[in-house]
């Protein structure tokens, strides 16, 4: 018998077809493990930790009434980015109001990055050429990758469901605190579906426009939908736009508070399935790697930065700086422009004015600056931090892509390259802050309020971003550029959580003081804290110096 034609029996262990390198599905699961663990841990920590903290802090019926009064005293315009006020005197209602809407946003980011990259990213790298030649249909390739992501996202959501169910059963101290299994389920389904809807948009667009554009469009739709939905109640003009996305469709699904809107959730599920099907079919039918470039103006030669390393560094992230500046500036413009509504509402809420004066004595919050301080700054610094992370990623790509091999073979010292990189990124921080300040200035100008103070106050975003540039450069120089941007993202996230959850989780004061963002003062109303500015300057300049020093001492990565 000839040996030719004998297929050797498959020796791939069954387990590696589920997790590992035994199939495309298994590899997708394996590649998603870190993101799943981080997301699941975050969800469990918040739902268990925060629930316990809430019932400990508000453990009497009187304290719950007080909590309800405080929340109801907040003018609608200030409640924008929080959830709907439904049963906030209960554990579930307060959880949903204060934290519930943020988690779909976080998981959406994961889903967008994963589903924009799973096919389009691999196409860009070229590895899909190999995968698609392994004797599987393209539909199967796409389905396996998609299933892997859905499974891991589902696992994270399952952890959220279990955590909520446990918290709702174990921590209930007052009548109404119990969170039913149905409520936990309804919230978790909504959480997972919103995240998957955002990812499915990126997945559907990926074969047409490529990874970067599909992630950008999906990210914009998700964030814009979130913000517009948040402000559609106080600013009814936003409603037509807000209700274009799943955030608006499901705004009445306040599951942890016991209010369900299953038809809207079903609509999200249907749209998600359609988008995923579009993505699979597009991948199956279109040429691999052939995408349509979204028309964008070419950068003038002057801005290409061909004259040297600083110019090149500026040029590398200039497009991002413009995009971030326009995005955050538009956010500032929208908020600044709606400040008059806030001032009107505040005038009718003496109780809330009293509350603010008790917390921030001597500060006039009945102004556009005060409104921006309360609403814009917290979210603005997070966006500024993420902008800094993209600049750092652009700088790091010189080394991670391998082109630094050639750049440093020119008579250019490593120190000069690192300092030029840091300088270029700081220039781009200036670009996006200038655009942001312009947006805020234009918005506030329409209200007739003082423009100068909030415009100057928006420089706080630049201080924070500059500090993060220093952190990224130091990490890149000392450890490796591939770690630089991820560390910046972790820094931003941890800082946000320490500031957001620190008081509720009872974190010790010294730990809470580690959050750089708690040291800037109330810049939008003209109160600056020198400690934060000095710390940012030290981190920015010191980080660049340390990074340059570290970079001269280590091997170049390949």
């Amino acid at each position, binding site marked *: 018998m000839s040996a030719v034609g004998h297929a050797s029996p498959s020796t791939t262990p069954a387990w590696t077809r589920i997790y590992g390198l035994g199939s495309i599905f298994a590899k997708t699961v394996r590649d998603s493990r870190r993101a799943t663990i981080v997301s699941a841990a975050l969800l469990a920590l918040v739902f268990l930790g925060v629930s316990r903290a809430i019932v400990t802090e508000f453990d009497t019926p009187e304290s719950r009434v007080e909590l309800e009064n405080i929340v109801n005293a907040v003018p609608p315009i200030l409640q924008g980015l929080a959830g709907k006020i439904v049963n906030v005197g209960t554990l579930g209602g307060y959880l949903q109001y204060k934290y519930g809407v943020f988690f779909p946003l976080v998981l959406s980011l994961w889903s967008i990055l994963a589903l924009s990259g799973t096919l389009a990213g691999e196409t860009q790298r070229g590895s899909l050429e190999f995968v698609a030649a392994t004797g599987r249909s393209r539909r199967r390739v796409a389905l396996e990758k998609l299933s892997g992501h859905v499974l891991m996202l589902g696992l994270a959501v399952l952890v959220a469901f279990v955590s909520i169910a446990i918290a709702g059963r174990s921590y209930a101290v007052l009548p109404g605190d119990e969170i039913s299994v149905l409520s936990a389920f309804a919230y978790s389904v909504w959480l997972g579906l919103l995240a998957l809807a955002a990812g499915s948009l990126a997945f559907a667009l990926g074969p047409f426009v490529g990874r970067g554009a599909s992630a950008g469009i999906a990210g914009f739709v998700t964030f814009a939908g979130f913000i517009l939905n948040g402000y559609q109640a106080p600013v009814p003009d936003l409603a037509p736009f807000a209700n274009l996305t799943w955030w608006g469709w499901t705004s009445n699904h306040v599951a942890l508070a016991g209010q369900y809107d299953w038809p809207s959730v079903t609509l999200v599920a249907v749209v998600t399935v359609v988008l995923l099907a579009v993505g699979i079919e597009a991948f199956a039918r279109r040429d691999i790697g052939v995408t349509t470039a979204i028309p964008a103006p070419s950068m003038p030669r002057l801005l290409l930065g061909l004259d040297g390393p600083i110019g090149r560094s500026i040029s590398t992230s200039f497009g991002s700086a413009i995009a971030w500046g326009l995005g955050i500036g538009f956010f500032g413009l929208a908020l600044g422009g709606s400040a008059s509504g806030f001032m009107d509402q505040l005038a009718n809420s003496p109780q809330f004015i009293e509350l603010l004066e008790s917390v921030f004595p001597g500060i006039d919050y009945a102004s556009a600056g005060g409104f921006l301080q309360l609403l814009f700054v917290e979210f603005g610094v997070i966006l500024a931090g993420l902008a800094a992370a993209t600049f750092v990623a652009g700088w790091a790509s010189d080394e991670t892509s391998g082109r630094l091999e050639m750049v440093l*073979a020119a008579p250019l010292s490593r120190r000069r390259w690192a300092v030029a990189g840091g300088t270029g990124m700081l220039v781009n921080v200036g670009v996006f802050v200038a655009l942001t300040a312009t947006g805020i200035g234009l918005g506030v100008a329409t209200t007739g309020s003082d423009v100068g103070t909030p415009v100057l106050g928006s420089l706080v975003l630049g201080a924070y971003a500059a500090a993060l540039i220093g952190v990224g450069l130091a990490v890149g120089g000392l450890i490796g550029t591939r770690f630089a941007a991820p560390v910046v993202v972790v820094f931003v996230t941890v800082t946000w959580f320490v500031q957001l959850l620190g008081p509720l989780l009872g974190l010790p004061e010294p730990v809470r003081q580690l959050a750089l963002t708690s040291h800037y003062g109330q810049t939008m109303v003209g109160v600056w804290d020198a400690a934060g500015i000095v710390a940012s300057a030290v981190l920015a300049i010191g980080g660049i110096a340390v990074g340059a020093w570290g970079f001269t001492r280590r091997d170049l990565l390949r």
Partner: protein
Amino acid sequence: MNTVIQTEKLTKSYGSHRGIIEVDLEIREGEAFGFLGPNGAGKTTMIRTLLDHIRPTSGRATIFGIDTTVDPVAIHRRLGYLPGEFTLYDKLTGGQTLDYFANLRGGVDRQYQADLVTRLDVDPSRKFREYSKGNKQKIGLIVALHHRPDLLLLDEPTSGLDPLVQQEFYSVIREAKAEGRTVFLSSHILSEVERTCDRVAIIRDGRLARVDRVEGLRDLAHHQVELVFSGPVPASAFEALPGVSEVVTQDHTLRMRVSGSIAPLVQAAARYDLADFISREPSLEETFLAEYGRAAAEVAGS
């Protein structure tokens, strides 16, 4: 003639991974020096250590008499480098990429740069990300060459180039050598090194296995010959022939290794009733393995 590159027990290890081990080399001005070895032998590590992109674990290297770890920038001013694998700026055109590197260096002969663009047949108006692998390689080559450096460090330079462009590249290298510039070229293609280099080092498992003039390679080049006769033939009739070794007889078939000219073997075989003559030039990999001590069984099984 001045020494351009000198290494003394140059070693680079990556923890448990092998890099290069105690490499001693001396390359003189105006020489074209080939650095031959199979994949993973340490060729790229050697070049990156010379550039100070990675730092030696022990030993030292000097280029133009300057310690590579002391003043790499002074060395870089006088060299041109092409990495084995690289990517450049996706959003810049080939021409803009060349402009940028010309600005980084200064002193680029724009006419020579334009000549290279023409000779290597590359369209400088296209974005780097739109180039094929070969065209990206051409841009890299021009970046390495356009400032007429005293020393060229080229890591597998013809990778991805079509045969016509390869010929043009060889001619550019010959011109550089004729102008007295030094070339250090890593490759795993024996014929490429034979064609362009004066001397060659062979590296295996991170150690220099041999350093010789390129003529010395000729004894590495050999043929595996199989002679099939109609009847029995005495092996002794072939064993004594010049260049013939490792003669194995099986029925009416003789297999042997032949170095150098194959003519004496052909003449000897013609005395008998020859039914078939099969001659095969082994790959460089096989040659290395056979020459530098891997198990014979491993070679036969490959």
